[in-house]
């Protein structure tokens, strides 16, 4: 059965109408030497045949559903409850957009309000916006906010251990905005080197951006970094790449940071080719009016009932045009809703349990790797052993791509090779664990590392 193809009868009538007898005559004016020769295509096939062919091809894929997956490096593979999709796909909710006449969509606004509340609880900050595109753009917006707050200062100090995507997007914006960037290197513990941070600070610095856990998975000393930033009169920014870490680790909000922002994908967004992602952005009350993006507020209607509004939108692009606070005029509504559903399901206790389980599994694998240590120079070893990590860590290896390819043949997605992320990072593999991994999978990974590395 062939579908949707114009029949020879249609073609004949069209040719007749324009006065041609054949398709060949229609194209007669095109010289033979520029014409394409006969195409070597297989004969047409039925829908059912095509379906079968593609299912056959799809079956050869190695997916996160059938492999033992230890991929991370910015996108994490946590449990995706079926209820998330069931709710997201409801017609009332299925839009990526904050509506332009927002107050008629009370349900959407309420969901965003709940989202903002969750972000404030996770970060221990005063105000959170309705979400941003992804963690990298959220980090950039933190730098731009700092410059709006401190217009006389034009330099941003960032940890070299920021996720490479955040650094790349930051460089793009900084170049266009004329912001100077200073990177602070890491020390032998894989953390921001304190002396270099002190050296980098100065009266022209508007922000210090530190990611924790950092790109190596290592937990930074937020208290010290925050104090150093404050001491120099700069804003302190805590960037978060793995949001479930906030279930068990103290956020920047507890240490007086001005901005806590980053990537929330770990809560409810599948790891599908790296996207879509979900940025979040939270600030102290005093920076409220310099915060980018949309903000939902709670109020009462004429009858005194609880209601929600888009608040402070007089500072946004559709009203202030070129003078708007930021060029972010929307949010990642559908992804924010997914995160809100997952966070509601988990609750405070569940969020903590996800953190504890992910951390414990990572510690299990780390101790297994420690036990494998050999003297013949082969095998993998922990890059910054002794430094505290959350659910991800770096193991050193000379041929990370070769090692990962071998493991992949055995159905193990063993991690992310650092050279693919950023050539300046130590050569090896980033291994990430979540509550979704089983102990059996961890043992398979350890066995494969012992045998293949």
């Amino acid at each position, binding site marked *: 059965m062939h579908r949707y193809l114009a029949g020879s009868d249609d073609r004949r009538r069209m040719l007749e109408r324009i006065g041609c007898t054949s398709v060949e005559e229609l194209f007669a004016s095109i010289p033979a030497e520029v014409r394409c020769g006969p195409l070597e295509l297989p004969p047409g096939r039925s829908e059912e045949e095509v379906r079968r062919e593609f299912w056959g091809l799809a079956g050869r894929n190695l997916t996160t559903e059938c492999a033992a997956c230890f991929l991370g490096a910015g996108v994490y593979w946590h449990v995706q409850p079926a209820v998330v999709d069931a709710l997201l796909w409801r017609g009332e909710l299925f839009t990526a957009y904050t509506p332009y006449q927002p107050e008629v969509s009370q349900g959407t606004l309420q969901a965003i309000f709940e989202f903002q509340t969750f972000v404030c609880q996770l970060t221990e900050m005063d105000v959170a916006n309705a979400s941003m595109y992804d963690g990298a753009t959220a980090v950039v917006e933190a730098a731009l906010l700092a410059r709006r707050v401190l217009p006389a200062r034009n330099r941003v100090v960032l940890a070299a251990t920021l996720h490479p995507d955040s650094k790349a997007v930051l460089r793009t914006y900084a170049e266009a905005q004329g912001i100077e960037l200073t990177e602070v290197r890491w020390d032998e513990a894989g953390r921001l080197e304190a002396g270099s941070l002190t050296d980098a600070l100065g009266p022209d610095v508007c922000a210090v951006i530190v990611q924790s856990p950092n790109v190596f998975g290592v937990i930074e000393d937020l208290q010290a970094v925050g104090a150093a930033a404050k001491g120099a009169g700069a804003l302190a920014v805590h960037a978060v790449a793995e949001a479930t870490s906030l279930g068990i680790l103290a956020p920047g909000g507890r240490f007086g940071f001005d901005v806590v922002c980053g990537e929330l994908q770990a809560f409810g967004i599948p790891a599908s080719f790296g996207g879509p992602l979900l940025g979040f952005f939270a600030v102290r009350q005093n920076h409220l*009016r310099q915060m980018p993006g949309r903000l939902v507020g709670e109020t009462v209607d004429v009858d005194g009932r609880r209601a929600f509004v888009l608040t402070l939108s*007089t*500072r946004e692009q559709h*009203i*202030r045009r070129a003078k708007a606070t930021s060029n972010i005029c929307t949010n990642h509504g559908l992804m924010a809703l997914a995160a809100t559903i997952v966070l509601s399901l988990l609750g405070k206790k569940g969020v903590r349990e996800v953190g504890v389980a992910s951390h414990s599994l990572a510690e299990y694998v780390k101790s297994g790797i420690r036990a494998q240590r050999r003297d013949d120079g082969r095998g993998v070893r922990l890059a910054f052993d002794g430094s505290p990590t959350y659910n991800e860590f770096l193991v050193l290896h000379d041929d990370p791509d070769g090692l990962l390819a071998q493991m992949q043949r055995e159905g193990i997605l063993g991690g992310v090779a650092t050279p693919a992320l950023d050539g300046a990072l130590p050569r090896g593999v980033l291994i990430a664990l979540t509550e979704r991994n089983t102990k059996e999978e961890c043992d398979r990974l350890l066995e494969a590392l012992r045998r293949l590395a």
Partner: protein
Amino acid sequence: MAQPTDRKYSRTHEWAMLAGDVVTVGITQFAQEQLGDVVFVELPAAGGAVEAGKACGTIESVKAVSEILSPVTGEVVEANAALEGRPELVNQDPFGEGWLVRVKVGTGALDHLMDAAAYEAFLAEEGH
């Protein structure tokens, strides 16, 4: 609408009142009516420089965010701290308690501005 005659006015509806070498700056009754309910005022810090005709802060009302254009050139000596908690003073008493900033100026700083009669004529001309 009678305008106070103890001060001068800009075409962008700010007023400036000189006492010694310090000018107090605010927005006019007409301006506050146009803005509607003021919810937030952002003012320059003391010590900063302002330039006549250039933005020196913003006034946020329920309708819009508007720039405050300084009517004079000089150095800010004080911003009205009362507006932080009570921005509605700009609506209630624009010529008095709702003042915005005090600016230290040189001689002749107000020469380019209109007196009350000229400002009134300007408003009439604009159709208000």
